[in-house]
């Protein structure tokens, strides 16, 4: 197949379908052939559902030909992280613990994608229960970075990031509890959004920590990310965390630019709290300078320290995750991989006082970020402090994995988007993160698109030939 089809965005594919230059079936066939050729080395998929994808593509093709075009995702392939239910397929959570029985219903987000006519390609690799990875002691191998398969692709939405980076599909769903959409986005050089807490339903998604879990869109460019959020966002009365509110549109206003927009640069995260790799720091400065050159007004912002943000996030995550896994950890500890076992058991040793102290401090942290976002429109900060580690270097992965600035915004619920800031001297993606007020996800897209347009990072792809 030509690389043009592998790197086609959803927007470009939709346009090609509408003008009959390409059909959904042609696109899905080409992508399936690419997956068959490349995925044995990358492990993005836990289960490729080629037959169902071709059937869905044929249906979309017939509908489009009959003039019943459902919208911009009609006929467009999408990959689903395997903690999200897809009817008829098991939700493995990348774990031996889960029963091998098919889901009886789609998760709300998958149902919305089907309604929009998107083509489900299959279920994607994750860290075990979205926390234990990268691991080599699970029923499926860990996904590998498409820029260099010796490196970690980030997690836990690893397969989503890898599949996008490798040109297997233009759209994917991930989930994010401590940074799991934005980590693979950072490591694989794609765009990943953790939306405002409550904006996207989590019903039908296996939980990790109720008050920190988000479902997020992952794509190769900003416009597709906004389209995907447009499709999956919306109030769900059966999701206790769902936010009622007006229907919001995210794909408009992308090209507004940043002239006059106030951007607060949170420098202490990567300069003081967790000193970043020099190339990461230089990449962040480049993004800041570029946006200033585009007319943004930059200032420096101070927030609570990354160390304390991380501690609050982890105490809450551990406490909530323990309530989900306690029964299995008591009865079947050997069915978990070592990393998941170690990361899910700390909740057994926390007290009610520990959790409430974290929740009280969380309230102050939300107020601190809200206050900062009164002074500016958007925050700019690091996502990962290092380029991706070597995946088989467990010590280096353990050292670099927590060196990130994503968990603060799971703790506070603010929308946060990570994307490529450039490439390191070793050819690995560097990253930047933007953060906005609650429900101002569209402002993130506006800023991210300004950086993307100025830098051309969306045109950088790994050489997988």
């Amino acid at each position, binding site marked *: 197949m030509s690389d043009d089809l592998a790197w086609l965005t959803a927007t470009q594919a939709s346009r090609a379908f509408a003008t009959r230059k390409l059909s959904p079936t042609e696109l899905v066939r080409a992508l399936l052939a690419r997956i068959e050729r490349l995925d044995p080395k990358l492990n993005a998929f836990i289960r490729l559902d080629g037959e169902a994808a071709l059937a869905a593509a044929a249906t979309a093709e017939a509908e489009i030909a009959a003039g019943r075009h459902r919208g911009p995702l009609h006929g467009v392939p999408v990959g689903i992280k395997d903690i999200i239910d897809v009817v008829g397929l098991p939700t493995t959570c990348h774990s031996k613990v889960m029963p091998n029985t098919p889901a009886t219903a789609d998760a709300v987000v998958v149902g919305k994608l089907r309604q929009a006519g998107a083509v489900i390609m299959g279920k994607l690799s994750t860290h075990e229960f979205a926390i234990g990875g990268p691991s080599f002691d699970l029923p499926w191998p860990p996904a590998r970075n498409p820029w260099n398969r010796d490196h970690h692709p980030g997690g836990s939405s690893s397969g989503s990031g890898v599949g996008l980076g490798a040109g297997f599909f233009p759209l994917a769903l991930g989930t994010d509890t401590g940074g799991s959409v934005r980590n693979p986005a950072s490591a694989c050089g794609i765009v990943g959004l953790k939306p405002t807490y409550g904006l996207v339903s989590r019903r039908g998604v296996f939980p990790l920590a109720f008050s920190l879990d988000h479902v997020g869109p992952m794509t190769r460019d900003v416009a597709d990310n906004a389209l995907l959020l447009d499709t999956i966002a919306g109030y769900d009365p059966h999701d206790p965390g769902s936010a009622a509110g007006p229907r919001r549109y995210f794909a408009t206003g992308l090209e507004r630019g940043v002239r006059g927009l106030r951007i607060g640069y949170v420098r202490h995260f990567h300069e003081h709290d967790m000193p970043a790799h020099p190339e990461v720091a230089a990449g962040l400065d480049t993004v800041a300078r570029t946006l200033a050159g585009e007319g943004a007004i930059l200032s420096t912002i101070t927030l609570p320290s990354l160390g304390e943000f991380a501690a609050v996030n982890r105490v809450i995550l551990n406490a909530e995750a323990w309530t989900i896994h*306690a029964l299995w950890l008591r009865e079947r500890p050997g069915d978990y991989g070592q990393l998941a076992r170690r990361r899910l058991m700390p909740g057994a040793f*926390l007290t009610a006082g520990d959790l409430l102290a*974290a929740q009280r401090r969380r*309230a102050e942290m939300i107020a601190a970020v809200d206050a900062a976002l009164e*002074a500016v429109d958007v925050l700019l900060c690091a996502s990962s402090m290092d380029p991706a580690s070597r995946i088989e270097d467990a010590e280096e992965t353990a050292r670099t994995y927590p060196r990130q600035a994503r968990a603060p915004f799971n703790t506070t619920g603010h929308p946060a988007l990570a994307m490529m800031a450039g490439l390191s001297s070793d050819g690995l993606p560097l990253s930047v993160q933007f953060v906005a007020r609650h429900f101002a996800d569209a402002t993130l897209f506006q800023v991210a698109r300004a950086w993307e347009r100025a830098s051309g990072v969306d045109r950088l792809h790994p050489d997988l030939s």
Partner: protein
Amino acid sequence: MEPAPPYGRHDLVVPPVFFAASPLARARPRRTIAASPHRGFVMDKTLIEALARQAGLDRALAEFPDCVMAAAKQAIGRSSEINTPTNPAVEPWPPMKVGAGA
């Protein structure tokens, strides 16, 4: 170590020649915090084993004692890094909700 500046915007990143405006410093009320009571506290093996058994982790303790020890140390390490609010009026998130009433 220098004291941390107050939260919020407090200076420019690069010389003002690059930017259209030079916002003034914005003072914010400082948080009221106290060190966690866990700070400096060390769990010994006997205590960890007792807590693990209380939590029903007997099997994990027998089969994966290193994992249990590592998990306990993570828990105590994390909770000790949180600065507990000293202001008694600071309530936990999320706030209690009882609906909109009749």
